Each structure stands twice: as structure tokens, then as C-alpha cells.
């Protein structure tokens, strides 16, 4: 055992958990540290990011936390642009404690005002030249950084037949999948998305399961890598997150629950295959919600049964939050897949 040169290199490493005889989960404390550190390292090397400069990003999610930790440790200034519907007060104060300037835009339509956040970001970059935009949606450093995860899976498992992971920016699943498939051409990739995310053809809408899916399509999402898509509702994900804690002592966020649910089902259906699952973040941020009985009881339709298997769709469409659906994507491009008619509005 040796001490890493930089604690972040240790903190970005997942712990590996065997969820069954043929399934290994990589449980990250904070997965987004992996792309965040890689993107900053590259920008420092290329000179794009100068000492003491300002970093900017439009996120309030875990990538924002990762950048905030790194920016603070490396003495950069940081602006995070978010919206009222996307951030809660405790998370905002955690980011601010690290020195981040958190800009919260009004979001009257409730769609996260992606366009408004981008406009603000571009204006800030114009006003303060030398500002570095980490650009996690489109920066190739995002997916390239996950070679480290691919290496960990290879060292731990040897043979890998399935890769299962959440999709939001596409970095972790498409990055890990790109590197693994060069070594295992037969590798199947299952993307875990949620209802009302546009990534695999749902019409845009309010996503109850935060941190999963997207309302826009980042360049880092490579649809042609994906063999099947699963849309996991928030309640189905909560149930599995609870199960991970009860049965394995693994305390993760609900998106990790969604990935674990899908991975475990694939491992059950394909007992001769080995399955690698990516679980992106810990449960602490969700202690007062997903792991709080009173909060859960306030949800419409909760409690509900934990769904055991997905319904295979022939037409892609969103469902209720307790539901879990699946579609044989077949490594298609988004435009190739027969989308349903969404109506006129």
C-alpha cells in the first residue's frame, strides 16, 4: 500500500463489490472526480487553464462538487451556474463553503433552463477572459478519463461480458464502454436512463430521479455503443438503493440503485455472463430524502411494490415512477430508432 501523490487520485477510485456470483459493482464515493481531475490536468498541461484563473460550469450536480473540491485544493476561482429547480440549500452551502460562487437562475418553466444557464456562462466568459469552461457535456476528457475505471474492471474481473451504467453526460458509460469494447468486441452495453429524459427518445419532461438522464443530448453520449436501454422510475430506483444497503451494506444514491437494479437483472437473466456495473455516488446527500421514511411517505403513490423485472417496450414512451421499462436499442443512432408520435404539443 502506498500513499497516492494526490488524495484525489485515491478519492476518485471506486470500491468494488460483488453483488452476486457473476456481477461486480464499482461503488464510487464521488465518480465525477475522475473526469474533473482529468479535465483539469489536461487543461493545466496545455496551458488552457492558468494558475489562479476562474473555472466555470453549468452544473449543480456531483460534477459541480468534484470541481469545487479540486478548484479549492488547487487555488482556482470557480463559478457554478444552476437554477432554482436544480439545487437545494444544503448542497448550495456545501459548494459555497468550498469557495464556489453559485449562481442560481430563476426557472419558471421548471425545465432546468439549460439555455438560460448557457447564456449566462457565455457572457461570463466574455466578461472575464481566461475563464476556463470544463464543458463536461462535450469535453472528450470526460469520456477519456474513464480508462482508469476500465482498467480497474479488467484487473478485477478479467472477462467482462456486460457493462451497465447510468447515462447523463454519457462520459462514464460511453468512455468505459469504448475502452472495454476494444478489448472485448462482444461486450454488451446497457444504458440506464429514467422516464422523461430525452437521451433515448422520451419527450422532455420533469425527471423525478435527479442526476440521471438529461433534457439535452451531450456530444459524449454515443448511442451506437448501446445494446439496450433501461428507463428506471424514481421509486424503482429508491427500492433498490434500500436493498443495496440492507443486503450488502452499500450506501449509495438512487441513481446507483437504478444501475444496480438493471445490472442484477441482467446477471440473473444471463447467468453464464459476467456483469460490470457503475455506481456513481454515495447515499449521504440523500439521507434526508431517499433514506428518510417521512419524506418517502409524502410522495404520491409511495409505498409501492418493488418491481422485479422490466417491461420490454416496442414503442419508446415514458411511464410512471414505480415502473421500469427496457428497449432493445441494437447499437443504433438516435435518429435511426423508430420514435413514437408524441402528439402536437
Amino acid at each position, binding site marked *: 500500500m502506498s500513499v497516492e501523490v494526490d488524495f484525489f487520485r485515491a478519492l476518485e477510485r471506486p470500491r468494488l463489490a460483488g453483488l452476486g456470483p457473476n456481477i461486480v459493482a464499482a461503488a464510487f464515493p464521488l465518480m465525477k472526480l475522475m473526469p474533473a481531475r482529468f479535465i483539469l490536468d489536461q487543461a493545466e498541461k496545455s496551458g488552457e487553464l492558468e494558475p489562479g484563473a476562474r473555472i466555470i460550469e453549468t452544473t449543480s450536480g456531483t460534477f459541480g462538487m468534484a470541481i469545487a473540491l479540486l478548484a479549492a485544493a488547487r487555488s482556482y476561482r470557480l463559478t457554478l451556474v444552476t437554477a432554482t429547480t436544480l439545487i437545494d440549500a444544503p448542497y448550495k452551502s456545501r459548494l459555497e463553503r468550498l469557495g464556489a460562487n453559485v449562481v442560481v437562475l430563476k426557472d419558471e418553466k421548471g425545465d432546468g433552463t439549460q439555455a438560460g444557464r448557457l447564456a449566462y456562462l457565455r457572457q461570463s466568459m466574455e466578461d472575464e477572459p481566461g475563464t476556463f469552461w470544463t464543458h463536461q457535456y462535450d469535453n*472528450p476528457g470526460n469520456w477519456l*478519463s474513464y480508462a482508469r475505471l*476500465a*482498467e480497474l474492471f479488467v484487473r478485477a474481473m*478479467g472477462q467482462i461480458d456486460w457493462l451497465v451504467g447510468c447515462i447523463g453526460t454519457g462520459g462514464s458509460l460511453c468512455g468505459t464502454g469504448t*475502452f472495454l469494447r476494444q478489448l472485448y468486441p462482444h461486450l454488451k452495453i446497457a444504458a440506464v436512463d429514467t422516464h422523461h429524459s430525452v437521451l433515448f427518445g422520451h419527450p422532455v419532461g420533469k425527471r423525478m430521479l435527479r442526476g440521471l438522464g438529461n433534457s439535452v443530448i451531450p456530444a459524449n453520449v454515443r448511442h451506437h455503443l448501446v445494446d439496450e436501454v433501461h428507463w428506471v422510475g424514481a421509486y424503482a430506483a429508491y427500492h433498490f438503493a434500500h436493498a443495496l444497503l440492507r443486503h450488502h451494506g452499500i450506501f449509495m444514491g438512487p441513481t446507483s440503485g437504478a444501475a444496480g437494479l438493471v445490472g442484477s437483472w441482467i446477471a440473473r437473466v444471463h447467468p453464464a455472463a459476467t456483469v460490470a456495473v457503475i455506481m456513481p455516488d454515495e447515499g449521504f446527500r440523500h439521507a434526508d430524502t431517499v433514506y428518510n421514511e417521512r419524506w418517502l411517505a409524502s410522495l404520491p403513490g409511495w409505498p409501492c411494490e418493488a418491481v422485479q423485472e422490466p417491461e420490454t417496450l416496442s414503442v419508446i414512451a415514458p411511464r410512471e415512477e414505480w415502473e421500469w421499462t427496457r428497449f432493445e436499442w441494437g447499437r443504433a443512432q438516435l435518429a435511426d430508432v423508430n420514435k413514437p408520435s408524441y402528439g402536437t404539443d
Partner: protein
Amino acid sequence: MSGEAHAIGHHGELIQGVFEDDEGYLHRGLVTLPLHNLRSTVHFVLDDSKNLTVEPPDRAKALRSAHLALAQLGHPAAGGHLSVRSDIPIGHGYGSSTADVVASIRAVAAALGTRLPPSSISRLAVAAETAADATGFETEALLFAQREGEVLEHFGGSLPPFILLGFKADGSSIINTLDLPPARYDLEEIQQFRVLRGMLARAVQHQDPHLLGRAATLSACISQRHFPKPGFDLVTDIADRHEALGLQVAHSGTLYGLLLDAQSSSVAQSVRAISTELENAGFQDIGAFPINGAGGFHVR
């Protein structure tokens, strides 16, 4: 006083690329495929002449390494004579020059009644020839930084057993390793090398020749983008059709190697069938070698 020692050659590399050390710095590195069948033997006699000579006289690197070894061992002004006998072909990626150098260093140490550890031998070898292979470590599988002579990772054992079918694309072209410009790998390739390194580690720890073959094949494909070898597509096609475990190359030479499953009951037939195809396609110096106890196989 005199000493004699030998060192083995190799059949190119299983992987070669750019790899991170523990501090996060990148180094050029490789995993060699050691070959027992080929060796260089050096006899060294100390004398009072204050002059150091070598036979054959063109082995300047061996001579330089003997100087360095004498200095390291406290006899910088000593004279003597090195005679190098080697059955390793020169200039194809068999590591002939490192084998001469390593055998010379060992012979000098033996003449002085001592032995040097592999790490010291490797550093002296790099000092003598700028870039050296991991020959000083014999058959221990490791990721070696060939320009610094440092080990980036010990994989903790030897390579798993397999049958190697070696051949050359063109027997006449001879390459001096140092004349090749180093490859400029892009970021995606450098990241892919991480995963290849992990696969090598797994292959050694679990003695899995299948994983070894996969890693070698992908490294050979990346190498092909930077140092194209004639006949590459033909060789990959043959490897696929005969279900070889993989394909490896000498990244700075003309050698190809197919890794075949020693456990397969039809491996002898595969070797014959592939050899015939290769011969018909004009490949040369075709030979099969059992690696690391993939025994029971008769070399034709």
C-alpha cells in the same frame, strides 16, 4: 581472472506504449516476450593491459557496458577481453544488443567474483545503449521503462504458457532500434494503454493466455498506426481464421508472433496449417516455440 555469463533474447513485445508511474508521470514502457531458445554468451578475461577489447569488434555496446560495469564495481581502469558468441539474429527485434550487453555485464561481475541484481544490470544496460529491454529480469513479467531502465510494475510472476508461432514479413530489412523516431501517441491511445496494462497484470496473475493474446493484439494494432508492417491485414486475417489467442509484434523490428492455445488438442495442426499459409504468402523464418512450459509440443 575470468567469468562467463549468458542472457536470453526475446520475441519483441506483448505491449508497448506510454504508461504512468506512481507519481503520475508518463514513461515509454513495454512488456517483452522472453525467448529462452535464443541466447548471447559472453566470456570475459581480466588482464593487466589497461585496455578493453571485444570480439567480434563491432559489439561496441557490449564493450561500453563492460566499461560501465567495471567502473560500477570499483575497477574503472581495468583491462581485459570480451568475447561475445550469440545465436540471436541482429536487427529484427529479438533484443540481440541488449542480450549482448546484459551477458557482458554479468560476465564482468562473474570475473570479479560477484553478481549484480537485475535492477542494476538494467540501469547499466540503458546507460550503455540508451534504450534497453527488460532482459536483465529473465522471464519475470514486468512493465519496463526502456529509456530509464526502471520497472513501472512487477506483475508478480511469469507469462502464462502458450505456443508462439514466430515469423518475419521481410527477412532482408534490418532495423537499428535507435534510428526509429519514438511514436507520438494520442490521448485516446495513452488511455487505452492503461487498460492494456491492467489486462497484462490480470493475465499474469491468473495465468490466462487468452487475456494476454487480446492485450497483445490491441497493442499490435496501435503499433501498426505508427510503424506500419507489411502484411499486417493478412496476418490478422490468418489469426482470426485459425482462432489464435492473439498477435504480437516486435514494435521496433520485423517480427510477428501468433499466440496459440497450448491447451487446444488441435494446436499442432494449427501450427502446420498456419505455417503453410504464411509460407505461401511469402513470410520467412517461420518457427514455433513453446513458452513457459507449454510443453509437449514438438518444434518442427
